[in-house]
């Protein structure tokens, strides 16, 4: 579990996050949603420590993230996996070498054991046999899956995904969502996902955090979305007239 307590972030004079208090729960897909510019990416970067908040605390279970020394932070990071928006695969390495990279740096397994682990995670993301391909030789959706495989190879307790579906077709998006969800449930991971994607919200939103101009304006799960009656949520989710009509029909309103 990750807990945020009044987290604020400013760049110069502009306050981008205005005091976020929320929880991201273990074994659940925790979503951060919101319009472009709402502060989702900044929030995620604060959570993983790629940026430092201006004030407030971020707790990983019972550890105050910002009180850690560089060494302790690195130790904690071995329990953190992240899928980047652009996948961030090392392009001069093959798929296999990409996934081996954290194993070689941080485990004392033999080469054969490492390769077993690589093949296991590749199978987990349905990419068995892609070992020797270079990132440039596989599609965007496959790169995302390699990114997931690399993020989970050290069996993280926390998994972060920045817009895992951006640039993917609806079908492939669903495959990625299901994959993230099953990994989260199977390993009881605290997963935080940044998304715009309505399908994801409705399919895997166990705990949804809606940001609006740097403020947390709604929190709930996917079954509460349709009935919430929250103005910001309605504006966000039912942005199109088509969806508004659909919702009204479902609720029996005219």
């Amino acid at each position, binding site marked *: 579990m990750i807990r945020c307590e009044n987290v604020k972030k400013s760049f110069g004079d502009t306050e981008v996050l205005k005091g976020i208090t929320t929880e991201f729960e273990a074994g659940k897909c925790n979503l951060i949603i919101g319009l472009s510019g709402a502060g989702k990416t900044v929030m995620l970067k604060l959570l993983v420590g790629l940026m430092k908040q201006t004030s407030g605390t971020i707790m990983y279970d019972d550890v105050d993230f910002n009180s850690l020394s560089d060494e302790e932070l690195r130790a*904690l*990071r071995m329990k953190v996996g992240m899928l980047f*928006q*652009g996948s*961030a695969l090392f*392009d001069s390495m093959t798929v296999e070498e990409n996934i081996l*990279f954290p194993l*070689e740096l941080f485990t004392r397994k033999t080469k054969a054991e490492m390769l077993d682990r690589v093949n296991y995670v590749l199978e987990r993301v349905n990419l068995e046999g892609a070992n020797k391909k270079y990132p440039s030789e596989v599609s965007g959706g496959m790169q995302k899956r390699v990114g997931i495989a690399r993020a989970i190879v050290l069996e993280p307790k926390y998994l972060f995904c920045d817009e895992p579906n951006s640039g993917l077709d609806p079908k492939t998006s669903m495959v990625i969502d299901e994959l993230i969800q099953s990994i989260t449930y199977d390993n009881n991971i605290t997963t935080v996902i940044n998304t715009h994607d309505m399908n994801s919200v409705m399919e895997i939103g166990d705990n949804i955090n809606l940001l609006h101009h740097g403020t947390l304006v709604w929190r709930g799960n996917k079954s509460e979305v349709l009935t919430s009656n929250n103005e910001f949520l309605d504006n966000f989710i039912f942005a199109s007239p088509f969806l508004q009509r659909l919702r009204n029909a479902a609720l029996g309103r005219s």
Partner: protein
Amino acid sequence: MFSNFAFHFGRYLELLGDAFSRPERLKIYWRETLRQMDDIGVGSLIIVAIIAIFMGAVAAVQFAYQLDGQLVPSYYIGYIVRDLAIIESAPTITCLVLAGKVGSNMASEIGGMRQKEHIDAMEIMGVNTAAFLILPKIIAAMVMIPLLVALAAGLAIIGGYLAVVIPETIPSSAYIKGLQSFFVPYNVFIMFVKAFIFAFLLTTISCYKGYYVEGGSVELGAASTQAVVVSDILILLADFLIAVVLTG
């Protein structure tokens, strides 16, 4: 201006501090260092060799021209070409060229990794990226560049020989006599001191420029140019200071 300098200098020192912390896994660092040694050493061999030969050849021809008709004996050409190569041209010119080749390459490699979020990805894994990306380059450069400089000195002397002996400006024996005259081993020491320091400067500055790059491809290009310009200026400045300290 001054606060800008202080900012960069402070951040540069901080990056170096991180780069020299204990490596996670020696084997991987070692593999990376070997790869860099190959890149820097073998990869720069031809350009360094060509420049060194011409450097020596031009020096020899020019001195032959200037000494012509004077009382200075012709074997001095060998002596002057040798000392010029060892003390000044081999370390300084080689390193200025390497700043352009190796330095800009390092800045754009690391800068590209920054922009493609590779560095962030490594940080999240728990890698000390300053150490992982920079330390192997520093070590490789400080091993290979002095060797390249020594090679350049040797080739410059050979270049000088070819340039004045083949056209029979002076006899082979005179050039060789010159090479054997007034030899001061301390100059070779100066050459290696310069090579080490220049190698350190050009690698760390180039890595610094790449590591903190922001923006897109325009900024990446600018960072790699700045890496070369700043390295060159500091190499020349260091050259002057070393001359003052070691020969003053």
